């Protein structure tokens, strides 16, 4: 670097004399100061300066300019043609600069002249030593980091602000109410500071409905609402809060919010034709989240298991491995590993920490203290993990026909695999017997083959070392008097001349005295072959071996041949490949087929219903560090970055032997990290109040907005850990028992004027139900909902026969989210969503008017209310309908309106009128049994019912 600088300077000095006269005039300093520096400042240094150095390039000093950026030098003094800076501003090179607005032609000329003149630079930035700051080198991210760590609000440990006294401007009763919780006192101060007072508590009926929806996503049963309204004391309220917080419905409701953050879906997204895109076991993660919330798993543990359940000590029960679905249920981007990793990095950083780190995939973050090195250190952590081919079983298979079908298919697939293995080992054995002489010859070698590799024979057959080894052991172990192998063992290694002599003597002896103790078959074969060298002897043996093998089970079989078989070719003998050895001797195509059949099994386990549930785990595999990808492109690898935590979390390196997920998880929920608790508090607060304490959820960085109530956020974040021990239930309780949360949602004129967005929370926010709560309310009102149902593989939420299952348990194909769900603003399953957008569009109205789901709910609710009303007639029906749909009795006015409407409609359609004595058409309960025209199947009561289900009240919570 030093040499380059000096030579560059030298060139510049030389060039100054020549080029400046033509281009820059006699005074290079004036040219630089009047023409070049203003241009650099105005057009370049915004992105290539001390604060931000895009692509590692700074253009605020001559040495930095000459040093260039991540992609090398950008300007060569005196060489206009090869200075990439010039190509960039001419917009003829690979990149165009400035990116948005091109330089004017005369500005380009100025830079050309400047380069031609040798880049004369005077004054600050000239690199001559009088600069106030180091001029060259990488961007000073360290300074940005230090500054952020020292002063940015979200990175400071939560303070211990004392809750302020309740404003004196409040009436005494209000003072008493608002003095009890720190949360209320922090809010009260700001409300009073704006010259406002809080709203009164919501009416009991409103409050109990809000509490139910908020904590469980379901409307209160009318009887429960009645009970609360009879005694709406603080004690009753507190008891109800506890009951609801401990319910499974509460865990389900908040699980869905967490699944938004976890970008949960049951498919991997777009897949090429013919490929399965389903995640058959994503639901095990969903069910795990429900269970974790139901058990109020502390948040630090909750997060740790989701990032590293496979790594924690002591090991968790298998069921908890499902937590890892947090990382694995995302989109797979057609298998692009870097996009998958990017998705996981964004999930963890933005989702859990409120940091927008994903920008650093391509360049150091423009605004945040997050470098590319931070990003690729995390990249390495996730690149060191993979999803195993076979996911671990975490439970018993379900009972029933599906399980039987599953087991049946499983059995046949396993048999197919075994059949293949059988075919392979039989083929290998057959060929080994056919090459018995060659195997015997391998045992005649005095030394192992120098390359250790079995030879390929002239006919293409490859000797199996496995069998050679076995045969060598057998032959070496055979003594000279072994009835079969004795002769071979004795003479196999003799040189040809000596061999002939010895064998001739042996055979002569046999002819003379018989061959006691020698197998008759061997004796006859040798006598007839009269071998003169080991090969001839081996061939003679081979013929016996093959004859004996062929004779099995045939009339020509003899005891002698049986003996030969036992020595060579029956299971356990040296020339037989055992079934379990099949894949050791399999040919390439046999191995391919074997893999395919194994994959069929894993695919069946993974995709067929009826199998045991499995956890969507990932595990550490070959820990490795990643290289920085310049501009995010894998084609342009840069330096290796060691796996470590982001600098904002301390930057510590992780265990070299593991991916580092565990350390990452621990750092996220460490007491020293103030981000996780703040993000969590804001997230929970936001879902309770309908607006957050931080206007930019998922961005607590330098560019994010500061919190509306910093002390309140700090207080809750600190106490959540210290008092609540990370219990989410503690946080819910803290919020819903506050006076602020219990305020009326009425918009008083002074609030509309002074605080239209309700940032001060001097009232509650009236909110539309989200998709899940709306559908669940329909199902609940219809009497269809079975609170014990749900769990396991997802259901079709639009199917009438699934109305007993809560919306949480829907199967979600991220590639094809039903239009109705989108219309009702469900979370985009492709990115961590802290808060859903909330739109009001006519398609929602169309759904309320016409969707089959609503029509079916109306049918069932009409039937239910009719049954419950008994013989009470229309008045009782209306009463029951209101209570089931809206958790309250109708007002007198509404009652009258409904009855008048029923009467008018009945009068209008006499043909549809019911039997005499009833005011409306007959009870729907007896209708489905007989085929009726469609119109009559949707009679007056059904129509009235749907009218109520379509009201704003049904869809909104005060």
């Amino acid at each position, binding site marked *: 670097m030093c040499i380059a600088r000096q030579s560059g300077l030298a060139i510049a000095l030389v060039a100054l004399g020549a080029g400046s006269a033509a281009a820059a005039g006699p005074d290079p300093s004036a040219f630089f100061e009047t023409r070049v520096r203003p241009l650099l400042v105005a057009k370049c240094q915004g992105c290539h300066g001390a604060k931000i150095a895009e692509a590692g390039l700074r253009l605020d000093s001559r040495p930095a300019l000459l040093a260039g950026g991540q992609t090398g030098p950008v300007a060569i003094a005196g060489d206009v043609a090869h200075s990439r800076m010039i190509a960039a501003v001419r917009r003829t090179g690979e990149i165009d600069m400035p990116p*948005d607005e091109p330089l004017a032609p005369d500005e380009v000329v100025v830079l050309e002249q400047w380069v031609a003149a040798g880049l004369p630079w005077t004054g600050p930035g000239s690199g001559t030593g009088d600069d106030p700051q180091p001029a060259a080198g990488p961007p000073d991210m360290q300074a940005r980091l230090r500054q952020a760590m020292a002063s940015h609000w979200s990175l400071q440990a939560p303070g211990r602000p004392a809750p302020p006294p309740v404003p004196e401007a409040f009436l005494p009763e209000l003072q008493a109410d608002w003095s009890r919780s720190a949360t209320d006192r922090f809010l009260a101060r700001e409300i009073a500071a704006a010259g406002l007072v809080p709203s009164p508590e919501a009416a009991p009926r409103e409050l109990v409905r809000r509490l139910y929806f908020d904590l469980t996503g379901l409307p209160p049963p009318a009887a429960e609402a009645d009970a609360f309204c009879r005694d709406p004391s603080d004690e009753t309220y507190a008891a109800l809060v506890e009951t609801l917080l401990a319910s499974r419905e509460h865990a389900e409701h908040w699980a869905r919010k967490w699944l938004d953050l976890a970008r949960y879906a049951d498919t991997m997204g777009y897949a090429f034709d013919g490929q399965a895109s389903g995640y058959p076991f994503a639901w095990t993660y969903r069910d795990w989240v429900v269970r974790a919330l139901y058990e109020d798993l502390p948040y630090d543990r909750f997060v740790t298991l989701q990032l590293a359940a496979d790594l924690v000590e002591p090991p968790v029960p298998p069921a908890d491995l499902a937590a890892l679905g947090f990382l694995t249920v995302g989109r797979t981007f057609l298998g692009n590993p870097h996009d998958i990793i990017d998705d996981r990095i964004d999930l963890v950083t933005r989702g859990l920490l409120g940091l927008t780190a994903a920008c650093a995939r391509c360049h150091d973050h423009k605004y945040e203290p997050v470098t590319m090195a931070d990003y690729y250190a995390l990249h390495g952590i996730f690149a060191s993990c993979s999803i195993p081919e076979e996911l671990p079983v975490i439970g018993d298979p379900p009972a029933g026909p599906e399980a039987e079908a599953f087991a049946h298919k499983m059995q046949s697939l396993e048999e197919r695999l075994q059949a293949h293995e059988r075919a392979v080992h039989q083929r290998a054995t057959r060929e080994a017997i056919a090459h018995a002489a060659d195997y015997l010859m391998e045992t005649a070698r005095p030394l192992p083959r120098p390359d250790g590799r079995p030879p390929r024979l002239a006919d293409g057959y490859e000797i199996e070392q496995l069998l050679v080894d076995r045969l060598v052991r057998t032959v070496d172990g055979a003594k000279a008097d072994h009835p079969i192998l004795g002769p071979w063992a004795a003479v196999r290694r003799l040189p040809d001349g000596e061999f002939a002599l010895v064998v001739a003597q042996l055979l002569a002896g046999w002819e003379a005295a018989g061959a006691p103790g020698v197998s008759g078959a061997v004796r006859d074969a040798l006598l007839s072959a009269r071998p003169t060298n080991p090969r001839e002897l081996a061939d003679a043996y081979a013929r016996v071996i093959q004859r004996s093998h062929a004779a099995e089970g045939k009339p020509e079989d003899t005891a002698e041949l049986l003996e030969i078989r036992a020595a060579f070719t029956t299971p356990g003998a040296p020339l037989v490949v055992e079934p379990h050895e099949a894949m050791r001797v399999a040919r390439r195509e046999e191995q391919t087929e074997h893999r395919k059949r194994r994959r069929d099994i894993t695919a069946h386990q993974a995709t067929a219903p009826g199998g045991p549930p499995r956890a969507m785990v990932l595990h550490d595999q070959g820990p490795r560090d990643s290289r920085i990808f310049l501009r995010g492109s894998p084609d342009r690898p840069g330096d290796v970055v060691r796996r470590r935590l982001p600098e904002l979390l301390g930057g510590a390196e992780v265990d070299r032997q593991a991916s580092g997920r565990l350390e990452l998880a621990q750092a996220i929920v460490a007491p020293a990290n103030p981000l996780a608790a703040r993000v969590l508090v804001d997230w929970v607060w936001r879902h309770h109040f309908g607006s957050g304490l931080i206007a*930019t959820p998922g961005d607590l960085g330098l560019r994010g907005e500061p919190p509306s109530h910093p002390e309140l956020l700090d207080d809750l974040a600190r106490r959540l850990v210290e008092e609540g021990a990370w219990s989410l239930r503690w946080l819910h309780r803290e919020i819903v028992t506050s006076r602020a949360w219990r305020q009326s949602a009425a918009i008083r004129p002074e609030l509309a004027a002074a605080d239209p967005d309700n940032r001060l929370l001097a009232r509650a926010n009236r909110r539309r139900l989200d998709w899940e709560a709306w559908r669940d309310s329909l199902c609940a009102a219809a009497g269809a909902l079975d609170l014990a149902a749900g769990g396991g593989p997802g259901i079709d939420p639009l199917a009438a026969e699934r109305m007993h299952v809560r919306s949480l348990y829907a199967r979600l194909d991220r590639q094809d989210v039903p239009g109705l769900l989108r219309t009702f603003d469900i979370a985009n399953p492709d990115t961590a969503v802290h808060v859903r*957008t909330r739109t009001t569009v006519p398609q929602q109205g169309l759904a309320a008017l016409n969707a089959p789901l609503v029509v079916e709910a109306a049918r069932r609710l009409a039937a239910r209310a009719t049954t419950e009303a008994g013989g009470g007639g229309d008045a009782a029906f209306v009463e029951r309908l209101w209570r089931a749909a809206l958790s309250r009795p109708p007002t007198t006015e509404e009652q009258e309106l409904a009855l008048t409407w029923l009467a008018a409609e009945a009068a209008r359609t006499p043909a549809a009128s019911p039997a005499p004595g009833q005011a409306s058409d007959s009870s729907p309960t007896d209708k489905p049994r007989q085929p009726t025209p469609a119109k009559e199947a949707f009679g007056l009561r059904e129509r009235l019912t749907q009218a109520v289900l379509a009201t704003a009240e049904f869809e909104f919570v005060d």
Partner: protein
Amino acid sequence: MAEHPPITSQPVTRREVLARSGLGLGWLGAASLLADEARATTEAGGGVPSTLAPRPPQFPARARAVIHIFANGGPSHLDTFDRKVALERYAGKEIPNSLKTERRTGAALPSPFAFQRYGESGLEVSELFPSVARHADRLCVVRSMHADVPNHEPSLMLMNCGDARLVRPAAGAWVTYGLGTENQNLPGFVAMCPGGYPIKGTENWRSAFLPGAFQGTYVDTKKRRVDELVQYVSHPVLDRDTQRRQFELTTSLDRRHLAARARDPGLEARLSSMELAWRMQAEAGEAVDVSRESKHVRERYGDDIQGRQMLIARRLVERGVRYVQVWHGEGQPWDSHDHIEKNHRRLAKESDRAIGALLDDLVGLGLLESTLVLWGGEFGRTPTVELPNDAGVKVASGRDHNHHGFTVWLAGGGVKGGTVHGATDEFGFKAVENRMHVHDLQATMLHLLGLDHERLTYRHSGRDFRLTDVHGHVVSDLIA
């Protein structure tokens, strides 16, 4: 914003009217909607002020509606509207200025399609678009478009929402926010895409932080039946008259509910959207029902998916819909990484006739003057051939994405017909002359609609947002 008071974040106009009328919310249901439903549903506007009420432009407009024909996937400019003879000379050879795109490409790939000059302007158009070419003298072909990156997702977001990455409203949402829409019984912004969603799905027509009313309404034009085209457009059991009385009851109940909860914009928006839903039932069904057109007309468009959806586009614009997007199809159909000759030929054959017929009709009905038609993709394609790769390209026979230079054309709505703006380099890799960024295109389109892209703003999260963010220049060369 002083010149354009109606644009605010809250429906104050509505509230003000309600307050002034002295009738409260009851006025809505009883007076305008239920007592005389027939009038309310047929009269454009229906007399109900809402966030979608038509608003005057900031200055006199040249166009009042937009039809954006989105050839999603990235059509090749080199095989359609930007002929490059140099590619023939360099066939099979490396070209000197190969730039980085998404994947590796090799030698120059000459266009397999013949070009011909059309009209008085002598505009060169390939054999792929003979029907469009009949309108050569009405086209303003921009050959110097460029975007930021060679990937579908960010480029789609840039083309539609003005930002590649962040959650921003679509152009159609901005325009309906700025101008409202002329027919209150139809959505102001309609996005048609047959067979499913394009890449990025509904994000392409989202309203993001703008009020939900400005979000594009999706229509799956692969469907043929009216009740399938517009989801939930009719009650599965009840006839309209019966349902009307049911709806009246809901409205009466809502009226009582809202009376005690005045000033809540959320509830008010819900009420107006219910009214809109009710009217949409009738009019939306009629608008998308191409069977109401004569056989002759349907045949001119082609009785197929593209023909039907282009015809629907015309019917929507005729009825005062502000912004219509017509996507070629689900996914990214124009993404011809390989076999471009076969694939582009098929894609153009599917759409050319319908686009030609649409332009014919807009001319014939006198609508082209006030309707800005935009055709193009999210980027173009490379002059070099894409090499076989792991992503599915087996034979080098197509082109990779190219954001450095590509072509769109505009017609009607005040653009200069029979002109070519800008140029790519000798090989068509990069826009070099009169370069026009997507932001510039958006600024120019807003300008034609009478909206200043720097003044069409919306305050959100503490700052004023706009479609073009801090970018964009109106390119006056395009304007007649």
